[in-house]
């Protein structure tokens, strides 16, 4: 992975001028529509639209030079239009530079490329709560809970005859990480669902996944 300018203290940062489709695509869409409906608003606006059609992502303007950056080669977003790719770079640039994001959170590339190297110690040492959540998701909740020694809060046999558990891990600076562990009767695989940290029993946990209060959750058949 290449060193980013934010990590390389030997490089100075030069402010971008926010001039390119990375920031002005919205204006370009508005102006193209405006021009189609009501005609040109003048040469300057027309030139700006044509400039953006050339494909600059952003620029840094100096007295003597203008540095123009090209658009990305590849971009991955989640359903909420945030940069996201749990399997590789979320943004791939023409010169080989890569950006990694998980649901809009910028993360180091090795977290995504080598998630097996993420340890419980690394997760618990992370002081940034948002990054810690990303680390847990990349590490896999199941492995994290097992290796972190999560406490069993409750156990029961569900309606399908499967043994299930409510597991909990406390953090000093974030809400407890609590999951309901169950066995899928059709595949035999163990699954986990993150549940509200306020529930205290397996039945409450299951009911909460159906947005129901525990006393109303009473299925006659489970398949």
């Amino acid at each position, binding site marked *: 992975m290449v060193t980013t300018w934010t990590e390389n203290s030997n490089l100075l940062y030069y402010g971008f001028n926010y001039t390119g489709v990375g920031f002005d695509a919205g204006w370009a869409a508005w102006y193209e529509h405006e021009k189609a409906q009501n005609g040109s608003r003048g040469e300057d606006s027309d030139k700006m639209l044509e400039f953006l059609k050339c494909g600059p992502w952003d620029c840094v303007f100096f007295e003597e030079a203008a540095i123009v950056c090209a658009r990305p080669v590849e971009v991955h977003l989640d359903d909420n239009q945030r940069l996201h790719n749990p399997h590789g770079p979320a943004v791939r*640039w023409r010169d080989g530079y890569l950006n990694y994001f998980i649901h809009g959170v910028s993360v180091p590339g090795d977290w995504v490329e080598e998630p097996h190297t993420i340890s419980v110690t690394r997760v618990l040492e992370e002081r940034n709560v948002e990054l810690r959540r990303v680390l847990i998701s990349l590490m896999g909740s199941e492995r994290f809970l097992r290796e972190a020694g999560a406490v069993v809060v409750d156990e029961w046999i569900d309606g399908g005859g499967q043994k299930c558990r409510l597991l909990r891990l406390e953090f000093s600076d974030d809400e407890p990480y609590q999951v309901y562990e169950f066995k899928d009767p059709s595949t035999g695989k163990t699954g986990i669902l993150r549940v509200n940290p306020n529930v205290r029993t397996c039945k409450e946990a299951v009911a909460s996944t159906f947005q129901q209060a525990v006393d109303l959750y009473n299925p006659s058949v489970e398949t």
Partner: protein
Amino acid sequence: MNDLAKQISDKWEKFALYEGSELDPKVSDYISFFYKKDNRKTPLTILTGSPYGAQVACNYLSNPTKTRVLAKKDAFIASVIADVDRQLQEKNVNLPEGGL
């Protein structure tokens, strides 16, 4: 949003994010136009492949000696410098040791 507005908006989103990274060389002409509007002389235009590449290019043009030293330990910086040097050569521009 009417149909035409939606169509144009979708087109620009697609263009910005999903249609490759080609940069039309005519971008230099429009930059010259904007500089001229501000009573400035035509600048040297350097094209780069990423925001980080743009930062490296800025560092190189401002302080070539220091950036060349950094390039000895960083292959990415070295590749950007090579690309900038190629563009300078095509434009017959000599980069002074003290930078632009």
